[in-house]
């Protein structure tokens, strides 16, 4: 008997376009981690990331009829939507992603609830602390390339840039991140 997980993305997308909600549920399960990771790397708490992940897939469901016209992989399609959801979120809250300062994170870290301080949260805070000092496009290329594991070509599709531009951007972003981390290390030593 054919199971949902035996069907490839393209077939699932076709079924979902025909109104099969379960097919879209299977697509959700396959790609929600990448979407969540992309969002959580740019957000301060996991609750927002969960809410926005569901919103991304609801928007995707409603945009599914025009999906093929975009000519991008389904994950890139989802991440484009996630990017727009984040932009909307920042507009609603009156601050851009770059305005999330390192002080904000340090302030939150100063009063952690012991029960909530898990290794995962600390790592998340570490990543956030490292990348939030960077330009928005640097953050985005690093998250897509190394946290979402997208290829340069897929990253280029999500960011609506050429592959070459993404490679250059990635190189500069890594240099900037390394410099930021070294500065942070020096401050700790002093």
């Amino acid at each position, binding site marked *: 008997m054919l199971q949902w997980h035996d069907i490839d993305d393209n077939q699932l997308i*076709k079924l*979902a*376009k*025909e*109104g099969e*909600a*379960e097919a*879209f*549920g299977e697509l*959700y*399960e396959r790609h*929600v*981690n990448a979407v*969540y*990771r992309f969002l*959580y*790397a740019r957000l301060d708490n*996991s609750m927002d*990331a*969960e809410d926005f*992940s*569901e919103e991304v*897939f*609801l928007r995707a*469901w*409603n945009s*599914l*009829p025009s999906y093929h016209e975009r000519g991008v992989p389904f994950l890139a399609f989802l991440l484009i939507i996630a990017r727009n959801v984040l932009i909307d979120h920042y507009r609603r809250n009156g601050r851009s992603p770059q305005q999330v300062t390192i002080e904000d994170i340090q302030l939150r870290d100063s009063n952690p609830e012991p029960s909530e301080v898990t*290794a*995962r949260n600390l*790592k*998340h805070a*570490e*990543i956030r602390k490292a990348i939030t000092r960077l330009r928005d496009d640097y953050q985005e290329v*690093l998250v897509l*390339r*190394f*946290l*979402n*594991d997208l290829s*340069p070509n897929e990253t280029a599709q999500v960011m609506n840039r050429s592959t070459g531009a993404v*490679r*250059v951007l990635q*190189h500069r972003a*890594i*240099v900037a*991140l*390394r410099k930021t*981390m070294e500065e942070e290390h020096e401050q700790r030593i002093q």
Partner: protein
Amino acid sequence: MNKEFNEALQVCLDLIRGGRETIESAVARYPEFADELREQLEVATWLTSASSALDPRPGFVAASRRRLVVRIQQENQPPVSVPLTFGERLQQFFSAKQLVPVGFVLLIMLGLIVSGTVVSASRKAIPGDGLYSVKLTLEQIAMATSMDEKSDAELSIQMVENRLTEVQTLIVEERYEEVAETIQESTEQISKTLEIIKNVNEEDRFLAYDLAAQLDGILGEQKVIISVLTQNAPDSIANSFVRVWAVSEVVKLTAENIANIIPPPPAPPPTAIPTKAPTSTPRPRPTLAPTQPPQPTPTKTSKPPTAVPPTNTPVPPTNTPLPPTNTPAPTNTPAPTAIPPTNTPPPTRVPTSTPITVSNPTATPSP
């Protein structure tokens, strides 16, 4: 940075991610970019190793998948992959958001139409009908919102007529079980109307008379109609009108009483050929009232003094010496006019400015 470096970086990343090589072994493949590759790969692998910290909490995916599927099924909006027809494009154009105000207006219009229809239908309702309570409620609302006693009286008269018309319909439709109660209500309504008319009478007798006459007229008409209708009805129905007609007699008497105490209206003026009415009636000019009573004006009539004839009465002498008086003589005394001679002695001339002196008081003249 050049294309070769980028390609070298990508190959190294793929090798490290695949778990086949470490950073050092990968960098060893490209000695010309070794230092720069190492720096980049260290940062990249740090980020990649941290990615697992960004995964959703356990259970979230399964739970949220079920939630999403249910929500999509509830919305029941399957995406359309086939080309849209003209009608579908129109439907898409008038999307749900655009139709919200239109739907709101339609809902209001529908409400008005339905309520209007209900109100209209309730006017014909009779006791026992579903809409009869609506009719009674509307009557009470109209009564509660009327502004003066005249309106109250007119509405009350209308309600009397309504009740009696309903009785007619009930008799015609042989729904006799509702008749008695409706007659009772009509009787009570007549009494209420009479009370209102009495209140109006205290303010305006003419209006009270009109209202009483109107009610009397309606009751008269209804009596004729109902009398005919009750001929074929059971005797109990005909008998139940006794009280109604008794009250209607009170109405008639009230109308007559009011008419009796109303003074007859003034007779209309004779219809003579109209003359041109004077536009300005001459009115006497007001005079100033005198503030002081009129006084006679002095006239310069010179009346000569009449001569006083001397008397022969002797004046007895007195021993009392009189002091000389300086009586001033009258000035401007007109001169005496000549009088024709009479038997009377001629008047003595009274010396002017000559004081009368009594030199010898003892020497009294002899008579």
